[in-house]
């Protein structure tokens, strides 16, 4: 498994709480998006299951004992879907395809 370059936000506890301030939240979600994409690319992963996501280190930083709550994960995935980097596999939105590159980029 390839070594992942964790961004500084990953060790910043507020990263794991969805911020109520809209401007801050946008910056936070942008960081999350690029983190999730990088992670999936380097681990060669293309499906994320919201129920199991907390087992993967990307959403759960054991070193500072913080995890992103499921609502937060869903929010990140929705954001990814908005930019064409993700797509729900089912109607309940539990399993998601992650596209390392968007269709436009190809």
């Amino acid at each position, binding site marked *: 498994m390839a070594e992942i370059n964790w961004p*500084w*936000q990953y060790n*910043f*506890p*507020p990263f*794991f*709480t969805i*911020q*109520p*301030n809209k*401007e*801050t939240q946008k*910056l*936070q979600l942008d*960081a999350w998006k690029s983190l999730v994409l990088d992670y999936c690319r380097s681990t060669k992963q293309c499906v994320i299951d919201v129920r199991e996501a907390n087992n993967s280190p990307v959403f759960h930083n054991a070193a500072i*004992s*913080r995890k992103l709550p499921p609502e937060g994960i869903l929010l990140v995935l929705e954001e990814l879907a908005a930019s064409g980097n993700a797509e729900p596999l089912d109607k309940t939105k539990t399993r998601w395809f992650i596209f390392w590159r968007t269709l436009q980029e190809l």
Partner: protein
Amino acid sequence: TRIKLRTGIVGIERSIHEKNKVTDESITVAFQDLSKLMTMAKDMVVISKTISDKICNHQGEISEDETVKFKSYLLSLGIEDPVTRNRVQNENQFYENLAKEISKILLGTIKEIGGMMVLTDAYCRVNRARGLELLSPDDFLNASKLMDQLSLPLKLRVFDSGVMVLQLLSHDDQILVRETVLLLRNHSSMSPQELSTLVKIPVSLAKERLIVAEKFGRACRDESIEGLRFHVNFFLENRS
């Protein structure tokens, strides 16, 4: 007074019985008076309702002074009829005077404690100082609401959470946020409790202060099982 005919146990029993009778009577009399008083009050309510209807119907005929007088009657009866009253005149003179008095009493202390006081604390202080003729929370709130219009040095402020405070008119959120961020930077992160002990303000105010800083985009929150903590907003500061 009655002459006791008998002594001994029967005599004692009788005198106890007599006493009970007397207290019973005085109790019934007291309650009779009370119910009479209540029926009178009911009449007053009905009358004042009709008068307020009249005022609403013919707004021009009654002079300003009369409505002021009428409103003080309503207040003395304890009738709350704000909708119709508000149409006649925006607020009562009683409240205006009260607002002036409150700001006079509290101005010094509020300056001392950093320019902000929770409304419940202010209420405690004023009533404690008064001793007699205490204020009801409603009176206090209504008077505080008027402070802005009367251009007093204090004003009422309601936070998003619903917490109400009295603050100095000269109070500036910008300065406070700057101070809060400086403290956050020195301590890397803080919970409302920690801030409250550090700057010696109530926890509720410390929390509001942090939330204001968050609203300005200078702080961000970390919510976990350890509780709610605030950090400097590095999302914004480290933006490349």
